[in-house]
């Protein structure tokens, strides 16, 4: 009986996530607040129903009342989170808020199914991270001088990464994190990617001269090399690709893009030849069956999980995702694919893509190089990370060992993703402020003109039109500022 209900919940969840995904893209296409709000209501409905359905299945299967409590705790968290934004950050991007909740909900359901203790821990960290990240938009909005600290960002970043490298060398193994009080292990590369983006953005804010590009590239390369040396290949790749793209957007130079790509390819070949662990990853990707019980084990188990789930999934608790090593963090996508099905998993990829598109759109809206590069850099970091994670899990590309933002287990990952999304929200709000200000000024201008027209009794219609014309293209001022 239980398994029939679980099969039913499986289909319900597939329908809900499809509806959710459709409405995220509907949101991105819509041009008016009213229609977007309608899409948001749909998203929230699907999100809450999917969360409820998932925990219904979990509760039925485990037969534990504590699951109901856990569910309610999460429900309260989601409601408070949404309310907080509604009250304090009315202008924030609702799509990103909803996506955050959806991705977290999917992660919670899967983690609870895999390991309840870890899920509870993840929930506590999530609440803490959400609370801390609440202040991020205010900081971005108010502290207009963040672009001055370029070298400080670089110093902090390199110091933190180097510290990890030193520790990992002394402990004879790939260790990417510090333990803090046993509860929480801090993985600096997750946070340094943010300071890295800030560093690059502030360097290019003031100049994109050849000299400045060289200096920035050297410092960026230091980040990447330290990461390669500490065997954090996924992070190294993220930093590299994000830097290359930021450089391209800042300088608009295809030459840099081409040169960087060639240099990167050369460096990859070199890394393949020099570093044993790089070689192993690539060989496992090419043919995991050569060493099926050794190095190839993880990816083979992941492929078993995804393949066994098929399009519709096995249903919660009906698969064996626990056979996949590190399924909770780096390989959670294969667990989701096995039990919720490939359709669900593709919808998940599309939700991540909608976050990325929102990031990119925000970066096109920003005036000023600093904010533009930050929004774009974070988009690149996020996009590359999602691609590396999912591509690695399905053996599309070699596995690099990187988390899926908001879904994977891992405190540092959750924390840094919250901060990233917070910064983007801050930028979005910043932009909305500016638009509102321009709109207000125009409103005043219109009123003045109306009064003027009334007073002189002619030309009212004509000046109204010209006001509209200006409103359509309110970028004059921002443009002047930027070009300096």
């Amino acid at each position, binding site marked *: *009986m239980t*398994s*029939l209900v679980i099969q039913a919940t499986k289909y319900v969840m597939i329908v809900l996530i499809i509806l959710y995904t459709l409405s995220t893209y509907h949101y991105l296409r819509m*041009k*008016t*607040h009213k229609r977007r709000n309608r899409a948001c209501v749909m998203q929230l409905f699907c999100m809450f129903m999917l969360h409820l359905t998932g925990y219904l299945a979990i509760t039925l299967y485990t037969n534990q009342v504590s699951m109901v409590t856990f569910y309610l705790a999460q429900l309260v968290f989601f409601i408070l989170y949404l309310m907080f934004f509604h009250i304090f950050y009315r202008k924030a991007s609702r799509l990103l808020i909803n996506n955050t909740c959806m991705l977290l909900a999917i992660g919670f359901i899967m983690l609870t199914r895999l390991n309840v203790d870890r899920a509870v821990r993840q929930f506590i960290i999530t609440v803490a991270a959400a609370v801390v990240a609440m202040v991020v938009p205010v900081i971005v909005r108010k502290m207009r001088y963040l672009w001055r600290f370029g070298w400080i960002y670089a110093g902090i970043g390199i110091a933190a990464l180097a510290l990890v490298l030193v520790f990992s060398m002394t402990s004879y193994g790939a260790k990417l994190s510090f333990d803090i009080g046993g509860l929480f292990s801090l993985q600096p590369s997750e946070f340094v990617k943010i300071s890295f983006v800030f560093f690059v953005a502030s360097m290019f804010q003031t100049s994109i001269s050849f000299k400045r590009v060289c200096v920035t590239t050297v410092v960026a390369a230091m980040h990447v090399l330290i990461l390669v040396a500490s065997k954090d290949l996924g992070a190294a790749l993220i930093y590299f690709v994000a830097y290359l*793209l930021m450089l*391209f*957007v800042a300088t*608009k130079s295809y030459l840099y893009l081409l040169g960087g790509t060639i240099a990167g390819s050369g460096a990859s070949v070199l890394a393949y030849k020099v570093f044993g662990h790089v070689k192993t990853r690539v060989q496992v990707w090419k043919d995991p069956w050569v060493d*099926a*019980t050794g190095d190839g*084990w993880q990816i*083979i*188990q992941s*492929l*078993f999980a*995804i*393949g*066994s789930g*098929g*399009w519709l999934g096995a249903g919660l608790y009906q*698969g*064996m995702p626990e*056979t996949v090593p590190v399924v909770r963090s780096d390989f959670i996508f294969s667990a989701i694919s096995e039990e919720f099905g*490939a359709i669900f*998993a*593709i919808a998940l*990829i*599309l939700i*991540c*893509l909608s976050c*990325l*598109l929102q990031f*990119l*759109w925000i*970066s*096109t*809206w920003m005036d000023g190089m600093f904010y*533009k590069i930050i929004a*774009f850099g974070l*988009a*690149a970091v996020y*996009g590359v990370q*999602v*691609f590396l994670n*999912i*591509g690695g899990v*399905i*053996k*599309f590309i070699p596995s690099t060992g990187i988390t899926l933002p908001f879904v994977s287990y891992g405190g540092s990952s959750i924390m840094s993703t919250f901060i990233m999304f917070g910064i983007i929200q801050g930028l979005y709000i910043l*932009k*909305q402020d500016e*638009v509102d200000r*321009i*709109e207000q000024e125009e409103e005043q201008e219109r009123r003045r003109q109306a009064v003027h027209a009334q007073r002189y009794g002619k030309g009212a219609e004509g000046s109204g039109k010209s006001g509209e014309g200006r*409103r359509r*293209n*309110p*970028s004059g001022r921002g443009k002047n500022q930027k070009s300096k």
Partner: protein
Amino acid sequence: MKEEEEILQVEERTRKVNREIRLAGVLFVLMFIATIGYFSYYVTAKSKDIINSSYNARLDTFSEKIVRGEILGSSGEVLAKTVEDEEGNETRSYPYENLFAHVVGYSASGKTGLESSANQYLLTSHLNVIDQVNNELSEVKNPADNVVTTLDPYLQQLAYDALGDYKGACVILEPSTGKILAMVSKPDYNPNTISADWESLISEENQDANLLNRATQGLYPPGSTFKLLTTLEYIREYPDTWENYQFDCEGTLPYGDAVMSCYDGHVHGHLNLRLSLANSCNCSFATVGQQLNLDSFHALCNSFLFNTELPLSMEYKESSFVMDGTSGLAERVQTSIGQGRTMISPIHNAMITSAIANGGTMMSPYLIDRVESSDGKIVKQFMPSSYGKLLSASEAETLTDFMVAVVNEGTSPSLQSDSYQVAGKTGSAEFNSNKEDSHAWFVGFAPAENPEIVISIIYENGGLGGSVATKGAKALFEGYFSRKNGQ
């Protein structure tokens, strides 16, 4: 007007094109689409083969929810089934015991044969939804799908008896489709008692390799059966003159420092190419071999699937043909008569023969005809598939004519029959320097004009001249046609 005012102010800015960011955006979208594309491709096309691996722990747990399906003969005979005792313990039962040991395989700690290659079907249920729900509610396991094979127990028994106590293997194919009608390997084992017998089967004292399926995994020198390919190469190299080929056999032929001699000191006298094959004249083929372009001969053998993967969904060993332009005289002569370093599996020899029988087209051999749900609905039907046209229709016709001559005018008169015409070729494959130690081969088909079955049979240590193999083939053809004519 109202609507227009609602238009989001911010987005008007996007009209100010930001080309580089958009380009990067397009790049990302393409990356994601490619990921989704690969993912879909994996789930749809590739995953079935991959998850059917012994490293996949899920396969074991399927059996907790599902009763393993049956493996059936072509007319529904049960070759393997799962039986449950009063206490609910399931065991796998093989009613024919040793008869299908290798081809059906076993499902114990490991899996072999069809039990392995059809594992996924045998663990998947396509029972109708209502019955599945009913079973679920009454906590009865769902029966998995059954696999209907192409195997014909009657022919399997004939082949099994024909091999007798010899070690060896026999494969019977339907040349027009590639259906494997029978596949026997000896010595064998009883799959019903495999767990109990395991230790003794794999012990070092046991030199018989009972578990090896010699039909696909046994490699033997092809002996004189290889002269078919030597003949074909000669015909291809001398398309205008091969019909004028002349040879006078004196029983021996010196070459280099050695001497080639015909079987049993026979002196075949005046021969053309057809009679050279019919009499399996070693001296004549040693001469033919010296006139061949070895690189082109190597290419021909590769096109006949030597040194290449076979289109088989079961475990097998690749056949090998080593000789090429760099080889010396001795190897050239030895290889042309089927000795030397050439190695072939019985199923591969059957496939080559079936290409000749099928007008030049080789069909990919297959064992599973269809998968049926436990209530008899067809879940998946396998269709014959052509591997390729390996020789032209006229080449196939010529070789068939030569193989008929083997029976009517050459080495195998015992295969003559009033009711059907056999085309075939015998062979004895020497496997060490002692000429007495040789494997006996026969490959052939009947009726020659419209072939229905292809036989490839080998007797290890069967002695010279292939007379054991001819006798076995005779029994098979007689059995096949007496059943056919009796019906």
